[in-house]
């Protein structure tokens, strides 16, 4: 495993869910830059991201994250129905003590100027995904965990996502992305890993 200034790390981590070891003795260090994580369905990519986010219980090993809790954007948008996109993002930024900042500006940049004040459940799947990804700009945490962020996105949003990730990299954030569409960002990646049957290897 590489030794660089780390925004986050997993050290010999094992995660067991429903009596099955999903991750087995995983060690991973994440410094500034883009790390791509790929692997077949069910390999444990989501579990690895959730372990880094503190959402998966560790049966063994240690998790370390510096600079505050990571920004984790999972398979689903993770936004509360009944609230608007703007209210959701403002709440999450405020909870981190960041203030509402330019939530409206971030949502506008993601093409949601007309939708930001509509309840989140009235937006399409792609619009909800855009709203959740706008958090990359409103919560600038040292560690960003993205689980299949390309899902539901159209070509305009893909361009926007690449721009948001590039900006995050310029800011020195560590971005770990689990994706099957690794070719979209392969040239920007500093590290690439494959997770298969709970074991991790760098490629």
């Amino acid at each position, binding site marked *: 495993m590489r030794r660089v200034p780390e925004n986050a790390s997993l050290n010999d981590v094992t995660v067991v869910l429903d009596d099955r070891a999903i991750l087995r003795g995983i060690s991973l260090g994440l410094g500034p830059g883009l790390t791509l994580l790929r692997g077949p369905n069910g390999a444990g990519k989501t579990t690895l991201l959730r372990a880094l986010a503190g959402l998966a219980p560790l049966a063994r090993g240690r998790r370390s994250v510096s600079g505050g809790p990571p920004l984790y954007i999972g398979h689903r948008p993770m936004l509360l129905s*009944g609230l608007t996109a703007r209210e959701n993002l403002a709440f999450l930024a405020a909870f981190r003590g960041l203030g509402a900042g330019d939530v409206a500006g971030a949502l506008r940049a993601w093409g949601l100027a007309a939708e930001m004040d509509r309840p989140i459940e009235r937006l399409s799947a792609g619009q909800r995904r855009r709203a959740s990804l706008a958090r990359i700009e409103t919560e600038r945490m040292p560690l960003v965990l993205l689980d299949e962020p390309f899902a539901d996105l159209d070509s305009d949003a893909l361009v926007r996502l690449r721009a948001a990730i590039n900006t995050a990299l310029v800011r020195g954030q560590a971005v770990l992305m689990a994706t099957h569409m690794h070719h979209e960002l392969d040239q920007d990646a500093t590290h690439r890993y494959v997770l298969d049957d709970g074991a991790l290897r760098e490629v």
Partner: protein
Amino acid sequence: MNALDRALLVAARELAAERRRPDGFVAALTFTALLVLMESLAFGPGQARQPGVASALYWIAILFAATLVATRSFDRELEDDAIDAVLVLDGGREALYAGKVIAIAIVLAIVALAAAVLSFVLLDLGVALAGHLVLVGVLGILALPPVIVLVTLLALRVRARVALVPILSFPILMPQLVACTQGAAAALTGDASAALGWAGILAAFALVYGVLGLTIVPAAIE
């Protein structure tokens, strides 16, 4: 931002979502109103007006209403995994628990007030000690959510959560239910010392389970 600020932020988020999509509130209000109405019809005016009977049925209705509001609140959290965005944050688990308790108590207070008005109109109840009745009511509403939210959080990922929450929480809530019923009956009949005694018990339960919830929840939620 301190722990109280974070809890209030979660409570405000919850109330904003409930205001825009008042599913839990409407279900609880409808259920409570129907139960009070059916009680007045089933028991007949003479029996239903007895302080013990009226209080017991009123608080049973409020207990179910609290479960309905809490269940709907966490259903909303689980849609699109919204809860994970809070759990990942520093202090998110405690804030989620405390914020939910505060918000559900506020929603429950509105439901309880409406149900009380309906009870007084339908049953033509006389109140000897209005202030004591309000005190018992407020403390009763504060005593129920800490247990219901705690059990709902512990059973969050269980498929039979809707059935499991009442099965697990109602036995724990029996002392609170007895205190609410006896306290309200005492206030209706004019027994000030008994009403205050039961109110004190309710305050103690609210405090104990509130602290217990804040202690258990951070380690217990998956």
